[in-house]
């Protein structure tokens, strides 16, 4: 008897729940905090600072420990715009784009979200982003304060779709203590591949658990390293892949020899699931090729002297250009507020200052005063190298099927690292698969 009473209560609870969900499905907008007061719309007449607005904001670059800086920026923003509630969501880079796609496909894109330069084109071409030109014109916003290259990265077909929030390049980070112990001169900005390799060998000789060099063998490094050797991925008008060329083969050979022939660089097995930064911070890695976004972490967590230099080249110098920007969803109901928010985070002096103080990534602005401040921060003492590197920037090859392109190249490079194919075989196979699967113009 008792049991049946329990069960009938249970049944009652269930019915209530089912009715509740049914209601939920009829009035979905009540679950959607993206839509604020009904008046907000695209109306330009109402005072933007008085009405209550909620902005959904999603991003990946302020991740792990750097998320705190982003939160500081939002706090500063809220001091000026107390009427706006920002719903921040951070997702790690690896999952970010898969998650974002599901949302965009479901018509639930966040109001403001971050895209990197590489993925930007796919989104712009699908027509899911809001062109900003109108808003910029009406509000008289001065885009001249942005670094032209970073700003240009987020425009396509003559329309501006995003505001750059950061701007970064890749450098050679090195552990001075290990160089001293191995009795090798510090890297200079004129170093070549060979100098790097020789130094790496001497550092590697110090100890079984100490490595000389690290540079991931993957797509992003590949397209840059081939440029250091005078190679390219496409023909001039981007209608054909040119993956399997002598220059490219030589570049890949150089990258892979560091692991398999000289073992100055740890293999995946030797890394054993740890990251290259961990190895560097543990004082067990002489040099690592990585981005300026590593500076805050290294500053905080390295108990030894370290510095940076321009990446070594071979026939030419080449270094990465990366830029992340904030874009606005085409379906947003709070376009103006979203734009003001994106503008604040990317260029307001409070936000720029936070970015600077954290030594995070380069603020994408041209203000000389700001840039001088950035240079003055130590470590690294040779921060000038960050700017000198800008002379050798190469941009990632952006095409619509970027993610797939990246994975195919990465897969074939890996077959060389794992000794399943020679460089020649791998690049030939890569070329073939790209031709089959990727549509160029």
């Amino acid at each position, binding site marked *: 008897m008792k049991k049946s009473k329990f069960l009938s209560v249970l049944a009652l609870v*269930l019915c209530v729940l089912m009715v509740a969900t049914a209601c939920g499905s009829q009035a979905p907008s009540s679950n959607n905090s993206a839509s604020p007061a009904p008046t907000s719309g695209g109306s330009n007449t109402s005072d933007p600072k008085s009405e209550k607005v909620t902005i959904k904001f999603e991003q990946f670059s302020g991740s792990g420990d750097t998320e705190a800086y982003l939160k500081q920026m939002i706090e500063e923003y809220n001091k000026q715009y107390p009427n706006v509630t920002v719903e921040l969501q951070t*997702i790690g880079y690896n999952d970010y784009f898969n998650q974002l796609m599901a949302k965009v496909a479901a018509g639930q894109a966040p109001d403001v979200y971050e895209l990197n330069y590489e993925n930007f084109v796919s989104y712009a071409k699908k027509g899911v982003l809001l062109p900003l030109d109108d808003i910029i014109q009406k509000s008289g916003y001065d885009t001249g304060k942005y670094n032209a290259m970073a700003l240009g990265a987020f425009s396509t077909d003559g329309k501006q779709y995003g505001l750059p929030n950061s701007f970064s390049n890749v450098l050679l980070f090195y552990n001075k203590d290990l160089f001293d112990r191995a009795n090798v001169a510090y890297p200079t900005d004129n170093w070549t591949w060979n100098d790097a390799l020789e130094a790496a060998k001497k550092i590697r000789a110090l100890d079984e658990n100490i490595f000389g060099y690290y540079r991931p063998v993957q797509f992003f490094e590949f397209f840059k390293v081939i440029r250091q050797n005078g190679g390219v991925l496409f023909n001039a008008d981007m209608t054909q892949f040119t993956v399997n060329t002598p220059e490219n083969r030589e570049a890949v050979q150089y990258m892979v020899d560091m692991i398999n022939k000289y073992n100055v660089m740890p293999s995946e097995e030797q890394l054993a699931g740890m990251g290259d930064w961990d190895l560097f911070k543990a004082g067990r890695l002489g040099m690592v090729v990585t981005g300026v976004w590593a500076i805050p972490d290294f500053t905080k967590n390295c108990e030894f002297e370290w510095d940076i230099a321009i990446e070594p080249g071979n026939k030419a110098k080449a270094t990465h250009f990366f830029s992340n920007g904030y874009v606005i969803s085409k379906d947003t109901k709070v376009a103006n507020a979203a734009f003001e928010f994106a503008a604040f985070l990317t260029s307001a002096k409070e936000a720029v200052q936070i970015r600077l103080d954290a030594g995070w990534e380069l603020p994408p602005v041209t203000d000389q005063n700001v840039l001088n401040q950035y240079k003055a921060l130590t470590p690294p003492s040779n921060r000038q190298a960050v700017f000198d590197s800008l002379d050798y920037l190469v941009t990632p090859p952006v095409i619509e099927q970027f993610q797939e392109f990246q994975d195919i190249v990465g897969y074939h490079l890996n077959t060389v690292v794992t000794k399943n194919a020679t460089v020649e075989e791998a690049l030939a196979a890569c070329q073939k698969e790209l031709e089959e699967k990727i549509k160029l113009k």
Partner: protein
Amino acid sequence: MMINRKHRQIWGAILFYVLGSLVAIIIMIPFLWMIVTSLKSKGALLSIPVEWIPKKPSLDAYKKIFALQDFSSSILNSFYLAVTTSLVQILSASMAAYAFSKIQFKGRESLFKVYLATMMIPFQVVFIPLFIVMSSLKLTNNLNAFLLLQLFNPFAIFMLRQKMMTISDSFIEAAIIDGANQFQIFRKIILPLSSGILATLGVMAFMGSWNDYLFPLVMLSDKKKFTLPLILSALQGQYSSDYNLLMAGSLISILPILIVYMFAQKYFRSGLQIGGVKG
């Protein structure tokens, strides 16, 4: 003969304890390692040789993980989903099972065959269109959407129908003579008599929901709505080599379900009698 038998019993006991403990140790090693790791500071993770017991145990990982806003809310989300989805599943399934076992109507057998046939379609086939259906109903990123999915669970319906068929019709006849209607029969006779299997299915549904990964991964995009597996996976994306943090998170995700299982254990005591169902 008697002595021989006694000997054998002693040896049997020894064998039992030796084998049983061996299996237990093998199963527990990864968990112990998880606990040990969660008590290490980040620097200690990388020490060579490996520290079996942390030299300087610290609770930093736990402090850090509870400081992450979305972690605590994910525990609540997981609980909410696990409780509600299992309730919806067993109620809806037992109602259907009742109709299929005790109410005679035209087309009953063919409809039941359709129900069973859908069991053959793996979830992966429907998860993309299901995502689309959910988004056209504006139900993505909504925890309650998972309740709707539980309305139809052919496995539970099948198991319950098997059970209900064994309930004698004479109970029902007696109830009808007393003037009971279908709902009263269902509630007062059928449900109590099926309570064992209901509980087992309920606990299984609870665990299934607690550990579900693929569909929530696609459906839920707002971190505040993430379930535990999702938040753990997201943590891995953000703190990929902070294994002390990841292990602390894993440990916390196991504890609640372990407690639920301890209470529900009696329903599993006699083993899962699923094998009796012929293929």
